[in-house]
């Protein structure tokens, strides 16, 4: 239990946002371009963190499917910033475990001649520690 509390606090610290402010209006889920790709939906991030179901959240696909497009952050009426919450969960995996979503040896197969550097650096930053 103590570990869960620590993780909740860690997520709050890393994200700098307060999950308790969420009123479950769902504007984030309504705005999210990756909604259908996610198993845990943006409007549920806050409640997972409040309940302490951090493991489920960090093991979910949601953390990797977020595109950092900031639509949820821009439109959230309560300043909860679900994008920041899920990013903090992702950080926890990347920092504590061998949780990288992208392995170096799989990269060559994913490239094509036009792949811009921006794509690689962005993917590296988002999918790896």
């Amino acid at each position, binding site marked *: 239990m103590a570990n869960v509390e620590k993780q909740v606090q860690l997520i709050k*610290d*890393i*994200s*700098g946002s307060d999950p308790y402010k969420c009123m479950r209006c769902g504007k984030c889920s309504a705005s999210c*371009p*990756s909604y259908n*790709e996610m198993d845990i939906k943006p409007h549920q991030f806050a409640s997972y963190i409040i309940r302490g179901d951090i493991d489920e959240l960090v093991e979910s696909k949601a953390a990797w*499917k977020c*595109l*950092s*497009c*900031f*639509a949820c*952050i*821009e439109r959230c009426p309560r300043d909860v910033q679900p*994008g*920041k919450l899920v*990013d*903090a969960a992702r*950080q926890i995996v990347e920092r504590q475990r061998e949780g990288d*979503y*992208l392995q170096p040896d799989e990269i060559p197969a*994913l490239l094509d001649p*036009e*792949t*811009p*550097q*921006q*794509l*690689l*650096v*962005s*993917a*590296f*930053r*988002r*999918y790896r520690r």
Partner: protein
Amino acid sequence: MKYSYYPGCTLKNKAQDLDIYARRSAEALGFEMEEIPEWQCCGGVYPLGSDEIATKLASVRALNYAKEQGQDLITLCSACHHVLKRVNDDMKNVQDISDRANNYMALEEPYRGETKVLHFLEVIRDVIGFDELAKKVVNPLTDKKIGAYYGCLTLRPGRILEFDDPENPKIMEDFIRALGATPVIYSMRNECCGGYASLKDPEFTKSRTSQIFEDSTGFGAECLITACPLCMYNLNKSDADTKVPVYYFTELLAEALGVKEEA
């Protein structure tokens, strides 16, 4: 007028068009872009974690260099623009990040967000003015119906980037008008193209870009312009029926100013 210029990784490589046409246009418009020596990659994505310091330092270095030159910092790539502006905001307004970053940097004088970061388009809007730009156009792109594709990184979060209204921007539309063409307004223009997901999940990005083409061409767009190499890549990869050509905004600018073919 002289600016420090942060080109970023992609503009040196896969997006050379974005860079070259910008330099030529800047000359034609009467301002100078001095490339920062030894700039480092911004990382492409702004590190959201409030305890992430190391990943922000590359940007701080560039920002501080511009400060030392006493110049505003200009960028073209929407990712660099996004990262630099947000790191700059952290350095100015987030005490904790600012202090720790300065500890790492050990600068003679701490950097506290003094540099003003401008997107190339902002320079045109706020310094030169679209009226002036229109006067300098020699090959007006008359009869062209152009859709501005903003994507996400240039606009959001609006409070920090202060680029334009994040939901109903008009800077690129004004730009298109100044070049003599007709802007096409469509609602997908500020929706994400799928971004870096294209690396692992190209099908998903294709579904996003299809929607963008469908919406923009539905309103009559004959081509799209963008400021982002990643959007460019994803849009080009689309196999949508409604696909139209996509240009960097600087290419059309250079064309209109009559400097496209130079050197």
